[in-house]
C-alpha cells in the first residue's frame, strides 16, 4: 500500500510540526509534550524494528523451522545484559559487554588497516598530471597535486606533538597547517549551514505541499 497524505494525516503532521517549532518562541508545555511523544514513539519504533525484522524471523525460521537450537546460546548471552538491574548478579552483565567489545576490537584491527593504507598511499603518488593525448604535463592539475601534498603534510605536522613547536623546522609547517585546517573547518561550517537550511526547507515543503497544497510545490 503506497503512502499518501490524507487530510487527517497532514493535519496531524502540521500540528506536530508547529508544536516543535513553538520552542523557538519559548520553552512551553506543548513543545514538552511533543518532545516526550517523539522519544516514546522513536524508542517504540526501535523495539518493533528489532522484533519484526530480526528476532521474530530468527525464532520462527532459524530455531523452530530449521532446528538451529544452538542459537539459544547467543540469545542467553544477550539476555545476560539485563542482570545489570540486579545488583547482586550485575557482574553477569559484563560477559555480553566483553564479547561485544572484543568483537569490535577484532573488527577494527582486521578491517581498518586496508582503508587507512589506501589513504596513505594515495597521498604519496606522483604529483605530475600527464595529458592522455599529448603526454605533456597539465600545469594546473600538477600544481593542485603539489599544493594538496603541502596542505596534507603541514596539517599532519600540526598534530605532531612529539617535538616542541619552538623547533623552527617543525614550527612553521605546524603554523601553516593550522591555517589549512581552518580553511577545512570553514568549508565544514559552510556545509553545515547548507545542511541545517535543508532541514527547514524540508519542513516547509511538507507544510506547503502536503498540508496547504500550494500550487507548483
Amino acid at each position, binding site marked *: 500500500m503506497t503512502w499518501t497524505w490524507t487530510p487527517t494525516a497532514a493535519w496531524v503532521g502540521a500540528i506536530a510540526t508547529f508544536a516543535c517549532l513553538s520552542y523557538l518562541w519559548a520553552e512551553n508545555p506543548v513543545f514538552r509534550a511533543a518532545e516526550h511523544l517523539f522519544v516514546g514513539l522513536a524508542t517504540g*519504533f526501535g523495539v518493533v524494528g528489532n522484533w519484526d525484522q530480526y528476532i521474530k524471523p530468527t525464532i520462527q525460521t532459524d530455531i523452530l523451522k530449521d532446528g538451529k537450537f544452538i542459537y539459544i546460546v547467543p540469545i542467553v548471552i544477550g539476555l545476560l545484559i539485563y542482570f545489570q538491574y540486579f545488583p547482586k548478579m550485575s557482574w553477569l552483565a559484563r560477559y555480553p559487554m566483553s564479547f561485544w567489545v572484543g568483537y569490535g576490537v577484532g573488527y577494527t584491527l582486521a578491517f581498518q588497516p586496508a582503508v587507512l593504507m589506501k589513504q596513505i598511499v594515495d597521498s604519496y603518488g606522483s604529483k605530475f598530471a600527464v595529458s592522455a593525448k599529448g603526454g605533456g604535463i597539465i600545469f594546473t592539475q600538477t600544481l593542485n597535486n603539489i599544493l594538496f601534498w603541502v596542505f596534507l603534510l603541514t596539517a599532519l605536522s600540526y598534530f605532531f606533538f612529539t617535538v616542541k613547536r619552538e623547533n623552527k623546522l617543525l614550527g612553521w609547517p605546524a603554523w601553516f597547517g593550522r591555517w589549512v585546517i581552518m580553511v577545512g573547518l570553514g568549508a565544514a561550517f559552510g556545509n553545515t549551514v547548507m545542511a541545517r537550511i535543508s532541514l527547514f526547507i524540508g519542513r516547509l515543503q511538507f507544510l506547503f505541499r502536503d498540508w496547504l497544497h500550494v500550487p507548483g510545490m
Partner: protein
Amino acid sequence: MWDRLMSLDKRVIYLLVAIAIAVPLVKPLGLPLSTSTESETGFNAVDALKPGDVLWIGADYGPSSAPELDPMAIAIFRQALKKGVKVVIYAMWQDGVQMSKNWTEKVSKEVGAKEGVDWVNLGWKPNNPVTLRQMTDDLWGAAAGVDVNGTPLSQLPLMERVKKLDSSSVAFIFDLSTGSPGTADYLQYVSEPKKVPMSVGVTAVSAPGAMPYVKSGQYKGILSGMRGAAEYELLTRAPGSAIKGMDAQSLGHALIILLIIVGNVGYVLRKKA
C-alpha cells in the same frame, strides 16, 4: 543604532530565516544550477550499468536527513529501474526502512517495476556493520532469510541471484547515509575487501569528511547534501524537491553571510565607540 542592532531579539533573526527560506519556495527565483564532477561521476557509474546488473542502495538515514537524501534515493532508484537494472535496498538505520518503503512504492508504481523481480527491499537488520560484513559471505543468513515484509528470500526471484554482497552478485553500491553506520562501513567491510565499486550520497554535514575517500578513488564521486541531490535530479532530467529547494537554499545562505557581516561590523563599531 548599532547597540540596538547588536542586542536584537533572537526571535527577529528566526523570523528573517523563516521568511528567507519560505518566500523562494512559493515564488521561485529560477537561479541557474550547474553540475559538479563529483555528481557526474556517481551518475555515470549508475548509467554505465547494464540491464540485469544489480545495484545495491543503502538507505542509512532517518527523517531528519530526508530533505537531502530522499531526492537522491528517488532519482537513483528511478534511473536504475528505467534502465532495467535490478535494485536491492538495505537499511543499516531502522528509519531507513520506512523512508525507503515510501520511495520504493512511489517510484516502482510510476515505472511499473515489480517487487521481488525488479527490486527487493531487505529492510533493516540489527548489529551493523557486523551484519553488513556477514552479508558479503552469507547474505541470506545475515538477513534472517526474509525481506522487509517478512517474505522468505527464497520466494523472491531476484534474490536467487543475490546470495552474497560481493562483486559476483552486485555490480555497484550507492550508499545514502547520514553518519554511522553508513558509507565508511560499506567501504571498509564490502567495497574494499570484496572489490565492489561504490559511490555515496551524504548530508552536507558529512561531505567534508567523506572527501578524502573521493580523492583516493574509493568513492566513485559523491552527492553532497541537497545541492548534490539537485544536481542528480538535473542529470536524470527529473526535477524533484531538491531542485525546488535550491532557491530557498540560496537565500538562506545569503542571509547567513549577511548576518555574519552585520554582526562583525556592529562588533567593530561598538568596540571603537
